[in-house]
């Protein structure tokens, strides 16, 4: 470890582990001490001091500031992760969430105002999605899916049919089958058609008396609108089955089309994808569930209700409900940001958001389609999928393209998903990228395509400008070091 690396490296200093920062006695923080602590505390099981680092304030601040410098955020630049949707997170929403910080959920007076805001968000999400009832408690998209599928399971059981099968198209997110399994369903994969959308005929072929629901993402993960969705819904309903929609791509159709109007019975929304809440490096998210009236009794507890005096309260009773899915009210501070976002842009802003998201994607698609293989020529909305097929024989893969993009200061797109496309590059610029950023991205992709043909070896070495080079995931999995020594 000796040498230049240890002392230089501006602007990126190799940051040691926190346990190697500081020393005993460094932390001199003055903490609130309103009470007199007795000399000998009379409690059982008191331990020696906890074994965590002893670090001064400036060392803590520098450590985490330097770690932050090793990251890439949305404010750094384009983050075109298809279906994961990483758009700009307005600073305004952060300011609105400030007010919640000191509020304890047991503070009934203060919670009256908070519940009022949450109720308003439920109503707004209902209007945006064309659905009748909403629960905000799921803490992320996958939690919303699970909650939604539990709602369907409860409805199916209440109806006495005991149906256990859920149909899932091959373009689905991995969370879909996993959520179904936790909800006690078995899943059956069904193929999407050669044009990249699911046909009513395929659905009809798979329907039988055991099908509880079909789970669909619309627009799907190829960015294609499921144009036969109304017919699919009709077939499902005729068969006594429900239509579940994964709302991961709702951002593409805001104000233009509503899932409820397409025959969707139950769905979830990902607040960060559609309503611009920050992703936090992997949460907290928000996965509200919305249902049509017939499923409303099964929604999780508690429910926000009018208290009869113009305020709001929580109703914790509901014999038909699936029960509670979170110990409190889900990620309230995220819900509040989503509401602030909706109100700040209003109905016209929501529609404009969808339009710009789709235009940005179509603009970029038109610039890249000639350079990369476009497996589905069907028109797309907010995202599109390319593949690495054009580089066959050069040894250059989608992984190389993704890593090379980092050297242009872009986050890579979603890769190797959806599974129906081999070597997929799933690109979603979102509505918040200015045209110059899109052009710069297209130029980077052109440059990478050129090098793939002329100098493929060089791409295997990418990235070269990032804080670390390609990371050895095999070593991580084989050695399995999950804590510091």
């Amino acid at each position, binding site marked *: 470890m000796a040498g230049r690396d240890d002392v230089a490296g501006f602007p990126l200093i190799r940051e040691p582990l926190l346990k190697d920062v500081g020393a005993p006695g460094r932390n001199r923080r003055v903490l609130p001490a309103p009470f007199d602590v007795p000399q000998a505390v009379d409690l059982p099981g008191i331990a020696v001091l906890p074994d965590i680092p002893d670090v001064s304030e400036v060392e803590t601040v520098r450590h985490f500031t330097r770690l932050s410098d090793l990251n890439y955020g949305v404010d750094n630049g384009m983050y075109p992760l298809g279906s994961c949707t990483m758009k700009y997170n307005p600073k305004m929403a952060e300011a609105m969430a400030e007010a919640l910080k000191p509020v304890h*959920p047991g503070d009934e007076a203060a919670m009256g105002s908070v519940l009022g805001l949450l109720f308003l968000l439920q109503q707004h999400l209902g209007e945006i999605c064309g659905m009748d009832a909403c629960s905000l408690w799921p803490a992320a998209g996958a939690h919303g899916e699970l909650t939604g599928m539990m709602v369907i399971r409860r409805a199916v059981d209440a109806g006495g049919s005991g149906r256990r099968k859920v149909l899932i198209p091959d373009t689905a997110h991995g969370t879909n089958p996993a959520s179904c399994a936790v909800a006690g369903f078995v899943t059956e994969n069904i193929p999407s058609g050669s044009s990249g959308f699911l046909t009513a005929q395929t659905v009809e072929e798979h329907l039988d008396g055991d099908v509880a629901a079909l789970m669909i993402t619309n627009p799907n993960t190829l960015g294609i609108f499921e144009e036969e969705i109304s017919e699919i819904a009709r077939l499902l309903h005729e068969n006594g089955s429900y239509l579940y929609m994964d709302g991961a791509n709702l951002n593409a159709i805001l*104000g233009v089309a509503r899932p409820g109007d397409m025959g969707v019975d139950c769905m979830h929304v990902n607040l960060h994808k559609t309503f611009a809440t920050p992703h936090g490096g992997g949460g907290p998210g928000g996965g509200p569930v919305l249902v049509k009236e017939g499923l409303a009794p099964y929604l999780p507890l508690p429910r926000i209700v009018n208290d009869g005096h113009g305020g709001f309260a929580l109703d914790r009773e509901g014999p038909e409900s699936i029960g509670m899915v979170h110990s409190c009210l889900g990620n309230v501070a995220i819900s509040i940001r989503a509401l602030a976002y909706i109100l700040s842009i209003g109905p016209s802003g929501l529609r404009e958001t969808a339009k710009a998201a789709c235009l940005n994607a179509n603009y970029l698609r038109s610039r890249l389609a000639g350079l990369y293989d476009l497996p589905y020529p069907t028109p797309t909305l907010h995202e599109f999928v390319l593949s690495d097929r054009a580089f066959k024989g050069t040894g250059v893969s989608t992984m190389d393209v993704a890593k090379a993009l980092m050297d242009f200061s872009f986050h890579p797109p979603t890769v190797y998903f959806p599974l129906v496309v081999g070597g997929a590059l799933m690109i979603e610029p979102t509505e918040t990228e200015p045209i110059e950023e899109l052009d710069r991205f297209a130029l980077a992709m052109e440059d990478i395509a050129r090098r793939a043909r002329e100098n493929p070896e060089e791409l295997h070495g990418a990235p070269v400008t990032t804080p670390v080079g390609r990371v050895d995931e095999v070593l991580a*999995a084989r050695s399995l070091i999950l804590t510091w020594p």
Partner: protein
Amino acid sequence: MSYVPHSEDDLRRMASAAGLTDPEDVFSPIPRAVRHRGPLSVGGPLDEETLRRLFRVSPSRAVFAGGGVYRHHIPALVDALSSRQEFSTAYTPYQPEISQGTLQALFEYQSMMAALTGMEVSNASLYDGATALAEGALMALRGKGIERVLVTRATHPAYRKVLETYLSRAGDAVVEEVPFCRDTGRVDLGALASAVGSDAAFFIQNPNYFGVLEPMEEVAAAVSGTAGFWGIVVAEALSLGLFRPPGSFGPDVVVGEAQSFGNHANAGGPLLGFFCTRREHARRMPGRLVGLTKDSSGRTAFCLTLSTREQHIRREKATSNICSNEGLCTLRAALYLSALGPKGLRSAALQCAAGAGELTSLLRDRGIFPLFSGPCFHEIALPLKEGKRQALLAEGIVPGIPLVRDYPELGEAVVTAVTEMNTKEECRWLAGMM
């Protein structure tokens, strides 16, 4: 208003480059029949100042509510650093080369949680303490021969309800309650001994929902080698700064809620579920894990690992359906633990315990006694008539969380939490009015 960075001219230019005559044509793949006509009936657009007025919330003057969400002092540096956009707006660190900040912070969080709980492995978070308990039970049920889940009645009622929700969908597993002693508030060891068995997974919250410290050595003796699987639930992570690490009692998992580590009460969320276990169970655990490794030139680096347990690879056979968790809350926990250090964490926990002691003696002077004789950390179950509770609320004093709905056998009562955010004056005020 919108956050779209285009002028009308930009939109037209992009449409024409994409081969569209009009920007609106971009929606042509959507059949007319499902189009929404007219504007959505939602509020706005509103300016920032109007929004600020709308989002104003005023907390009560003195708050003694806990019950799984705690108000603790959070050093200013936690807000300052966790709001850096490099952390707060980043995605899940699937691309490790440009996510080393998130990954290293998660690794440090995992290391500190493992040390504090006395377990070998910690995951990178779950939604909250309740879902952490549910995931713990699901993990137990995936093991051989486990068919029942035992949980103490003094475990957080909401946790038990979430557990019921998860398990009632997951097969035939039964949830059974282990009662508490009405005088001590501690688990009924006799009932535990007769309920436990190799076909059962057992979970106990400590300190329990009433704030009472469970007799962990006796509990461990009763279930070690007898229960097929057992876990300790910690709903107040700050207790880890004072008491023997729960892992030292030998459980299979320690799960719970770490909101107390640097996360605001936030009207109830986001919370921070944690999940710690022994190394032998690592491949069966839910949620993300960060591992230490090297990059292409041999430098230390971090990446997500054991992904094959997860939904995006194993799909319906995954150990959990969880994807996004509470990433930024773990960063805040790491910041908080770093800011407080071992002595700070101990001192904050001691302040809480001392505060609860102070309030108890003030109440005793007025002839009011806790419901239970068992030793408490910083929450106390107290008798309180509903009328009196309402009167206190009207005065801006939140005396605690009512117990009657979840424990009707205790009558009208509250569980009252004292933390270092309360003052002696507030305690006198509360005691004087109870």
